[in-house]
């Protein structure tokens, strides 16, 4: 099976989900977003603690990541919930989403007059966005970008990771791959209690916001980068007990340790994979089924982990 049914997003490509996404431009409206989401059970939402008190290009990168995630092909439309006084102005963020071809509406708390008014306004926006169905199209594997991440651990996940990446590419998918390194530089400044020492280890000199160059070993941030780079589906290979998922992409969890067998946040157990080739082929099929609509465990649980890579501390 190399075809799947997706959602036509025109220039943005094909999505495998048809989400309406709520996102705050700044962490101050996180709770507001949560309250809107309670009243609109069909929407996805993400929360974060960025968007203000950030320096220069560090702020610009946050905006780029948020905009790109909101423009991911899995997102039918996004509602940006702004505060009004923040550095990451909701209007600018919405414009950036529009520039990427995404559909976006805005609700600003200080302009609307508080949480209640913002929840009411957002509910109306969501109702309108919910009513416009996306067109389903048949697409083949080449329309898919798969993010494949693995926790470094003892190496077993990394080995399987390499095999999965190769198999997906052979199947015609575009793949963005990363092995998440364990914190190897925990020994650096082990007693560091002063925030600035670790920041200065990156060296001095101007910060440049470049979404293409950003990286992170933090799972929430790594997944956000994949979504920002257009991945519609993800595979997470791990020996750790980590249920991490994404608000906009299905994340297929592959366990490589026997202790994860049968746990309710793991989709596929490959701890006992004697025939790597056959096992990996099954995985490719499973991923295409997910693209076609099969729900992953992370989706079932509502895992909506999200983070933004940072280059500078908050001010």
């Amino acid at each position, binding site marked *: 099976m190399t075809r799947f049914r997706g959602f036509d997003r025109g220039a943005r490509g094909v999505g495998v989900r048809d989400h309406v996404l709520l996102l705050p431009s700044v962490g101050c*409206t996180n709770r507001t977003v949560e309250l809107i989401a309670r009243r609109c059970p069909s929407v996805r939402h993400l929360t974060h603690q960025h968007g203000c008190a950030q320096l220069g290009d560090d702020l610009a990168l946050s905006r780029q990541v948020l905009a790109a995630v909101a423009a991911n092909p899995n997102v039918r439309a996004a509602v940006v919930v702004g505060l009004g006084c923040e*550095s990451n102005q909701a209007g600018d963020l919405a414009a950036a989403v529009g520039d990427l071809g995404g559909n976006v509406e805005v609700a600003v*708390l200080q302009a609307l007059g508080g949480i209640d008014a913002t929840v009411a306004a957002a509910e109306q926006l969501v109702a309108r966005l919910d009513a416009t169905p996306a067109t389903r199209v048949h697409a083949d594997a080449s329309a898919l970008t798969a993010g494949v991440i693995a926790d470094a651990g003892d190496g077993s996940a990394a080995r399987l990771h390499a095999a999965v990446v190769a198999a997906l590419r052979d199947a015609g998918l575009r793949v963005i791959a990363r092995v998440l390194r364990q914190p190897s530089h925990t020994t650096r400044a082990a007693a560091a209690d002063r*925030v600035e020492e*670790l920041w200065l280890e990156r060296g001095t000199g101007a*910060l440049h916001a470049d979404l293409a160059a950003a990286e992170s070993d933090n799972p929430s*941030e790594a997944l956000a980068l994949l979504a920002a780079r257009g991945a519609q589906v993800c595979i997470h290979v791990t020996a750790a007990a980590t249920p991490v998922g994404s608000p906009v992409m299905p994340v297929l969890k592959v366990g490589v340790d026997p202790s994860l067998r049968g746990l309710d946040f793991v989709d596929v157990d490959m701890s006992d994979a004697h025939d790597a080739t056959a096992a990996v082929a099954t995985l490719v099929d499973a991923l295409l089924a997910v693209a076609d609509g099969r729900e992953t465990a992370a989706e079932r649980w509502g895992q909506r982990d999200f983070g933004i890579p940072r280059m*500078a*501390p908050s001010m």
Partner: protein
Amino acid sequence: MDEFLGYPRRQGNAGVRNLVVVMPTSEVLNRCAELVGEAVPDAVCIQHFNAAAPGAAGFHLRVLAGYVSNPNVFAALLLASGDPGDGGEELAELVARRGVHVELHTLRGAGGLGALVERATERARSLVAAAGAVEREAVPMSQLLVGTECGGSDALSGLTANPALGWAVDRLVEAGGSALLCELPELIGAEHLLARRAADATTADAVVGAVRRWEELVRRLGVDLRGAQPTPGNQAGGLTTVEEKSLGGMAKGGSTPVVEVVGYGVAPQRSGLVLMDTPGHDVEQMTGMVAGGAQIVVFTTGRGTPTAAALAPTIKVSTNTAMARRLAEHIDVDAGGIATGRATRQQIGEQIWDELRAVASGKPTRAERFGQADFAMPRTAPSWYADA
């Protein structure tokens, strides 16, 4: 009488709330905490942001331990993965040592996400019932450590709300209590004035050193602070430079000497006005205050922001009456009358003092009605190194 009705703790301090906190030790357990919170709305379920970066595990652990040991906490439920190195056992040990009832529940221990949610929900429900059965007792106001903050500031912040808060802070210090003045990047331009009224030369040097270290960090990072401070909202509201913002912000601390400078999340050893080294980020600073033992936060705002500390009731004071009316559901005290001559600094200061006592004794703040429970650790390292 300078008393409130609170919860005396075995450790000798006292809380203004008797909370059950559900704390994920890493962001991946946020959803689990959220599900527990949906089942047990009276528990405070934290959404963890900015988990430990490489190299900062010690800092992170210390701050989290202080956080869930805040005097407002009756019991802490920690959620961890159960993987080796997840930090759960260490954190539980630190918290237990502080005499707080703490339980650690793990994904591996429970045998799955559903089982962990079920177990944590059952425990949270039981602990909330036990917490609710405890009666309040008379506690002197001197037991209060009040965190002060300004967010969404405008030009009136330094004219109305901050000076009124400073009046209340003076009153608290006079009664033997303590207050925290934080957000050091937003004291750039005013640090020499605070140093002048430090309790001694060492503290004066510490004040100047702490503030200038932020300025130096910004310089060495090769960025211009002027793009970040003041914010667009500050500027729309009339604040032009960081110095102007700082001079207005400083007024929150009142007029008593700065007796100590403490690091992020560190509990003060001396009583009076204490400077805590935090970023200006609204939520990161509140998290540090709570980790250092602050039981209440008083938060002045000009543009109007709904944020509030997860474990400490946060009293919102508006700088101007127009916003207090437009965002009435988010404001506890309006200081706007000072600008128009309808009220004096002392009158609003007394209102803040009365509100402190009432909230300490159980009156819910506007933010508590919305369930605002904001949390964020300060970022301690870049997410990646360009030359690594």
